[in-house]
């Protein structure tokens, strides 16, 4: 459990695949999220990811374990990039090895969604017009229900975008 789940350097996909391990597995699902050049109609030049690293590491490791347990798959590996990224750079990689394809696909989608909704990582987009903005995200407070907040579980519609 000492592998890095956050990195400030470019992410290499190959070392994460473990293709020659797990002989009981006949499936490998891979998701690679890359930086795209537009967001909600605006032209994006580059972006920066920042994190609360101690909690983000813990959340991502917890997601890896929860995914293994939930889908009964032996290998789940997630790496999220931090720092300044250009268009096309890899932002997140998720690899799942599984006996069969169905649980590989399902587990991979579950793990990526869980990281996007739960890990304290922020995306600041820098647009071609010279402005910048943090992308609106998911609230990770777990005690909002205790308050009289009328919009306690607001999830923006674009939260599931890759």
């Amino acid at each position, binding site marked *: 459990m000492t592998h890095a789940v956050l990195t400030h350097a470019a992410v290499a996909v190959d070392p994460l695949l473990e293709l020659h391990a797990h002989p009981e597995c006949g499936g490998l699902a891979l998701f690679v999220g890359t930086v795209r050049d537009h967001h909600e109609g605006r032209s994006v030049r580059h972006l920066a990811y920042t994190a609360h690293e101690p*909690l983000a590491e813990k959340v991502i490791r917890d997601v890896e374990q929860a995914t293994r347990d939930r889908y009964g798959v032996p290998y789940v590996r997630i790496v999220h990039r931090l720092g300044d990224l250009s268009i096309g750079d890899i*932002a*997140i990689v998720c690899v799942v090895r599984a006996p069969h394809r169905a649980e590989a696909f399902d587990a991979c989608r579950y793990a990526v969604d869980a990281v996007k909704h739960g890990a*304290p990582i922020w995306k600041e987009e820098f647009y071609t017009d010279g402005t910048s903005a943090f992308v*609106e995200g998911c609230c*990770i407070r777990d005690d909002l229900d205790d308050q009289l907040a009328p919009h306690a579980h607001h999830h923006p519609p674009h939260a599931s975008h890759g």
Partner: protein
Amino acid sequence: MTSIVFELFANLERLAGRHECTVEVDDTVTTVGDAVTRLAVAHPALAASLERCACVSGDTIVRRADALPADGRIALLPPVAGG
């Protein structure tokens, strides 16, 4: 008086123009929520963004009703958008 150090992230850090904000509190402030309320008073520019922030001590999310962390440090995490 005790010093509470808030660590700010993302748009909160931009709004404050710095990574940390220190608030001096008296002994009527006993919970995380009390301290967040004092921060909102001391830094009105942050007030509207605080409700949707999670509070973290070390690597653990703490609730507004929890006692102040012993080290007096609270990280404020706005809504997240990784991936």
